[in-house]
């Protein structure tokens, strides 16, 4: 799960999305095809090659007020069109910590 902070080159091996954190609260968001942000991965714009990825990332980074730290993240698209995170890091960002949060006493 190499951190995207170390993402030096844009090379995508398959389907990807652009993800970031919403500026006002830091929540995980995904770039949509309508040039907005959504907390729902299923609404993310899917890119399939480096040129598409670069274009989507450039557009996302330019929207500096809506979200911060945009980067390209892998996803898997099922035969039914369902979009799932492509690695553990993105799975955790989507569904939350894997450890359970401290129980209230």
């Amino acid at each position, binding site marked *: 799960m190499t951190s995207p902070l170390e993402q030096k080159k844009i090379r995508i091996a398959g389907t990807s999305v652009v993800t970031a954190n919403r500026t006002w609260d*830091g929540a995980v968001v995904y770039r949509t095809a309508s040039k907005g942000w959504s907390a729902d991965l299923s609404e993310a714009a899917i890119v399939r090659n480096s040129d598409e990825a670069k274009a989507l990332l450039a557009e996302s980074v330019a929207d500096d007020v809506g979200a911060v730290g945009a980067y390209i993240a892998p996803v898997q698209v099922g035969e039914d069109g369902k979009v799932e995170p492509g690695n553990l890091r993105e799975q955790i960002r989507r569904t939350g910590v894997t450890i359970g949060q401290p129980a209230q006493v």
Partner: protein
Amino acid sequence: MYAYDEIDRTLVNERVSEFRDQVKRRLSGELTEDEFKLLRLQNGVYLQLHAYMFRVAIPYGTLASNQLRALAHVARKYDRGYGHFTTRQNIQFNWIKLAELPDALADLAEVGIHAMQTSGNNMRNVTSDQWAGVAPGEIEDPRIWSELIRQHTTLHPEFSFLPRKFKIAITASDHDRAAIKIHDIGLRLIKNEKGETGFEVLVGGGLGRTPFIAKTIKHFVHGRDILSYIEAILRVYNQYGRRDNIYKARIKILVHELGIEKFSREVEEEWQHIRNSSLQIDDEVIEDIRSRFTYPAYEKLPHMPDELRQAAADPDFEAWRRNSVAPHKIQGYSIVTISLKPTGKPPGDATAEQMDALADLADKYSFGEIRVGHEQNLALPHVAKRDLPALWKALDKLGLATPNVNLITDIIACPGLDYCSLANARSIPIAQELTRRFANHELANLIGRLHINISGCINACGHHHVGHIGILGVEKNGEEVYQITIGGRADESAALGNLIGPGVKFDEVADVVEDIVEAYLALRERPEELFIDTVKRLGVEPFKERVYATR
């Protein structure tokens, strides 16, 4: 406790107003993220996987009960009801909203808490022994000197844009609980032959991807000269430290590349220019700081009160007392370490309810004072021995009486991939599984003192290099893989651990640790020989053989 003066209060309040304005401008788009990032980092605000993370300073690990309640309030009102105590006497909140951060800072400012020096390339929160001021045999309270350095370095322009972050730790006891040898500057408070207070100064320690144990640069610097000597070190670092490569920017790299002798000469030369300047500390300055620390009005109490004698018949109480209660410099009192490592829970986390209740217990049993240690546990520093049984019962109800301090389940772990944007692998689930594997306290006691440290990436926030058993999570072909080291330690005999062999998968880590422990139990010469001493005596090989024989 240290009482802030008007200057401190004004500084903290002004900082809140400034940050409120900065956040407002960021949210309106007036400031770009690039412009804002430095400002938020100067206020302890990181952007992590799920949200912003807010890191709050607990200078030299000392908290008043009302301050702990304020932290509980922030956890409850602005976060998700808990906080995470770190390895550098800070607390982190993981789910804070940027828009609400100024309000959280304002609420903390009311009790003198802030987030300065918790992030960015500046002088970080000065840390110290969590038993400062109460440990038997201590030369003097190191927090007085920690506070001096805090005052001098906070917002100091020369230390605000360093090549990289810079960390100082101070101890005044023979046994180093502040891990000074893995800090950029480590200070060991000592007396010279004239009985004058001064410091052995160590420099160039640190972990991360290039770990080093700090080296002694000067055997004695008089207390009155300590600021000028630190400043001389910082000036040499500022002049020669690399700014072109983040991985080579820490002072440890400079010390290593120049060599301690050359580095020392450079510092000495610089020091002679500034030694007799306004940086020389008058005794009155130290006395003024000393006078602002208040110490409890201890009673004259028996060494062995009846309450303690009677409670000793309870094996559960005794199990807790044996490893949670330490001698105090005043007869009739004890230092009580509160384990934040319950079985199956994330190390270092405390809920708002626990923090509130602990603040109440501090008021009732510890003169309203709480300490935070780098091992991610808390402590009550002034508990009358007669109160130990009642305190234990109260802590047990709160889930804060796990009798595992310094044992195998007293694990240091970074937040790892569950929270951290830098992480490559998860840390907390590994710790959770290990606490379940070794949940039997009789077994843990049989094993004896054994520190496991876990980091989720090479940045080593979980101090894996200096764990008796160190576990480092890395990523290999898209999977979490864990490298295991043994033989590290962070105390006065600090050492870096040695790798035992190829990395293992997530599901195998606890099995490997079990194998290492089983090997130790079979190899130790006597029950008193600690794990770390067996490793020192025999080296890595027998443990490696045991672990990899069947893998």
